[in-house]
C-alpha cells in the first residue's frame, strides 16, 4: 500500500470532479470521456491500496471495454440528446470545480509542508506481487470456486440470451415484412 497524501488528495479531487462532470456535461460524449477518467482514477485507487490485480482488471474492463460499449450505443442512437432542459445543477459545476481546486492546492501545500519527501519510489517496489497473485489464485480457484463457476455460467447465459434476443427480433421483423406483402 502506498501511503502518500499527495497522490491520495490529487486523485480524490480529480475523481470527484470528473464524476460530477460526467453527470452534468451537456454532451453525452463528454460525459463518456469523463467517466473513462473516473474509472482510471478508480484503478489508481486500487493500485494505491495495494491491489494491482484489481487495478489492471478495472483499467482493462472499465477503462477500455465498457466505454467502447457505451460509445457504440451512443453511435447507434445517433449521438442525439433529446433532453433539452438544462439542469440548474450544471451551472454550479464551475463553483464545485473552484472549491475542489482550492482544496486541492491547500492540501498539496499542507502535505508538502508536513512531509517534504512525500513520494518514495521504493514503496512501489516493496509490494509483494508474487504472493498477492498466489493468494488470488488460491482464493479464486479453491475458496470461491463455486462463485467463480456461477459467474462464468451467468456470463455464458447472458451471451446466449443476447444472441437469442437478436435472432428472435430478426424473425419477428421478417414475419412482419412477409405479412405486409
Amino acid at each position, binding site marked *: 500500500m502506498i501511503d502518500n497524501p499527495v497522490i491520495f488528495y490529487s486523485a480524490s479531487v480529480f475523481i470527484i470532479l470528473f464524476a460530477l462532470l460526467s453527470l452534468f456535461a451537456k454532451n453525452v460524449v463528454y460525459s463518456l470521456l469523463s467517466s473513462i477518467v473516473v474509472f482510471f482514477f478508480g484503478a489508481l485507487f486500487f493500485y494505491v491500496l495495494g491491489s494491482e490485480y484489481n487495478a489492471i482488471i478495472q483499467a482493462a474492463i472499465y477503462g477500455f471495454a465498457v466505454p467502447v460499449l457505451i460509445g457504440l450505443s451512443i453511435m447507434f442512437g445517433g449521438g442525439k440528446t433529446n433532453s433539452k432542459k438544462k439542469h440548474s445543477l450544471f451551472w454550479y459545476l464551475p463553483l464545485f470545480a473552484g472549491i475542489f481546486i482550492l482544496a486541492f492546492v491547500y492540501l498539496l501545500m499542507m502535505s508538502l509542508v508536513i512531509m517534504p519527501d512525500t513520494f518514495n519510489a521504493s514503496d512501489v517496489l516493496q509490494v509483494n506481487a508474487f504472493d498477492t497473485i498466489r*493468494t488470488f489464485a488460491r482464493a479464486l480457484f479453491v475458496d470461491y470456486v463455486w*462463485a467463480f463457476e456461477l459467474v462464468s455460467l451467468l456470463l455464458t447465459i447472458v451471451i446466449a440470451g443476447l444472441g437469442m434476443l437478436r435472432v428472435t427480433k430478426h424473425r419477428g421483423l421478417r414475419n412482419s415484412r412477409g405479412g405486409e406483402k
Partner: protein
Amino acid sequence: MEITMYHYLFIGLLLFLIGLLGSILVKNVIKVLISIEIMLLGININFITFAAFCDNIRFDGYIISLFYVGIGAVELAVALYLFYLMYQKKESDNIEKFSDL
C-alpha cells in the same frame, strides 16, 4: 498527514452519493447507466479498502470486487442492449419516455 481507512471510505461514499444523485436527477439513459457504474465504483473502493486495512490474510474484499467487475460489465451490456431496443421504438433517449414496456 497520514491517510487512514476513513479517507478512502469517504471517497467511496462521495462517489456513491454522486452516482445516486445522477441516477435520480439525470434524464438521459446513457448518463443514468454511467451513474450506476460510478455508484458501483464507490462500493468497490469500499470493498478494497476494507480488504487492505482489515484483512491481510485472505483478501476476501479483492475477490468480491473481481466478481463485481464481471457482473457489472454484464449488467451494463444487457442494459445497453435493452436501451438500444427501446431507442428503436421510442426514438428518444429520455428516460421518462421509457416508462412503458
